[in-house]
């Protein structure tokens, strides 16, 4: 029910009033009209999180990359340092999170 998926904004139409502002959002090539009233700052090519036909947030791509890189770094650290240094690494990780 709270399912929401990210899609890329292809175009934005202003609408007669901000509450009617709509855009076309691509979900991996499948395009749908989406209400953009709740993401006033959104620009074409941004990613938005869409729930029941309404964009409920602009996806923060920088934060997405940070999470992915952070996970990657932890993996690399594990591989490089081996299990004996895990506690130290975990403490470092706590500082990050």
């Amino acid at each position, binding site marked *: 029910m709270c399912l929401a*998926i990210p899609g890329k904004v292809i175009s934005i139409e202003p609408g007669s009033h901000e509450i009617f502002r709509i855009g076309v959002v691509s979900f991996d090539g499948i395009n749908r009209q989406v209400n953009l009233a709740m993401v006033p700052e959104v620009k074409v090519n941004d990613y938005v999180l869409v*729930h029941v036909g309404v964009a409920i947030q602009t996806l923060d791509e920088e934060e997405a990359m940070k999470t992915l890189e952070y996970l990657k770094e932890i993996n690399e650290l594990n591989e490089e340092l081996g299990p004996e240094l895990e506690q130290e690494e975990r403490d470092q990780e706590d500082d990050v999170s």
Partner: protein
Amino acid sequence: MKYLEEFRDEQQVKKLLDEIHKIVTREWHIMEICGGQTHSLVKNGILNLLPGNIIMIHGPGCPVCVTPIGMIDRAVELALKKDVILCSFGDMVRVPGSEMSLLKAKAMGADVRIVYSPLDALKIAADHSDREVVFFAVGFETTAPANALSVVQAKKADIHNYSILTSHVLVPPAMEAILSDEETRIHGFLAAGHVCTIMGSEEYEPISNKYKVPIIITGFEPVDLLHGIKSCVRQLEKGTYLLDNQYKRVVKHEGNKEAKSIIYEIFEIGDREWRGIGMIPSSGYQVRKEYSAFDAMRKFAIKVAEGKENPECMAGQVLKGLKKPHECPLFGNICTPSNPQGAPMVSSEGSCAAYYHFGYESVQKN
């Protein structure tokens, strides 16, 4: 699809699982609030891959499941009126009421239409000015802005044959109700990511402090879920109880201000009955008096009576995390998705349906 595939990466899943196995030293009970997360945990086989001493408890975060049977009866009653078009999300039409479901009412001639969005229901109202269009507005905080927006748009566009039948529920009061229940044993929570997208993370800090439980705001993909579980286990092992946001790509501290302002334009907080749990004070939204003309409860002078439940159904205990779906005597024999006795078997996000569809044998160690 970008920003989905990366969070479904198999290697990353394996590594996170390895880490969880390494850090856990004793039994922990962690509740995922959201039905979408339950669905993902079961569907992706994660429950079976976690260490045996991490017990995931499935929370009440399925709006279809917690909508009282009396509300479904009123929706059926409205749908059977000749001049009414009753619009609903798909899951809701299959939930059995005391006498029948909305789907059965449709089979009897009622004009029941499944819509993807409340804005689609509003369009139906605009296209049928001679009929009354009622949208069955259920959901958590995630869905409240869209439902409220349909009313804001209806007023702005002078569409007066549109109203909403509201059964909206809120997560934080339910968490407090669960934590206050002496029978429950929950050490940590995964908070529902998309609810927090709207409301922000600020509502949860007082709960983690008051009840001394770590709360991790978590997404829905396998990597997100394991990242959330790992953070929760680490805190539990260390004895800390902090609020931690692991879903920062869509959850801001303050949430979405525009969405919240649309919610508060239309709704105010009121007491709400939860199916299987009972009345929880200040746990739902109701339409403000200023928008009475768009409130189906007032427009059609509806009174919600108590509905008839199957006395053997354990839905209430399942929703509170006291029983697992397969511990119910009705599970899988009398109660199946095609003949659901209780709501968690109806919605694909209900824990009973998730266990039924994906094989409860694979998750019964929990």
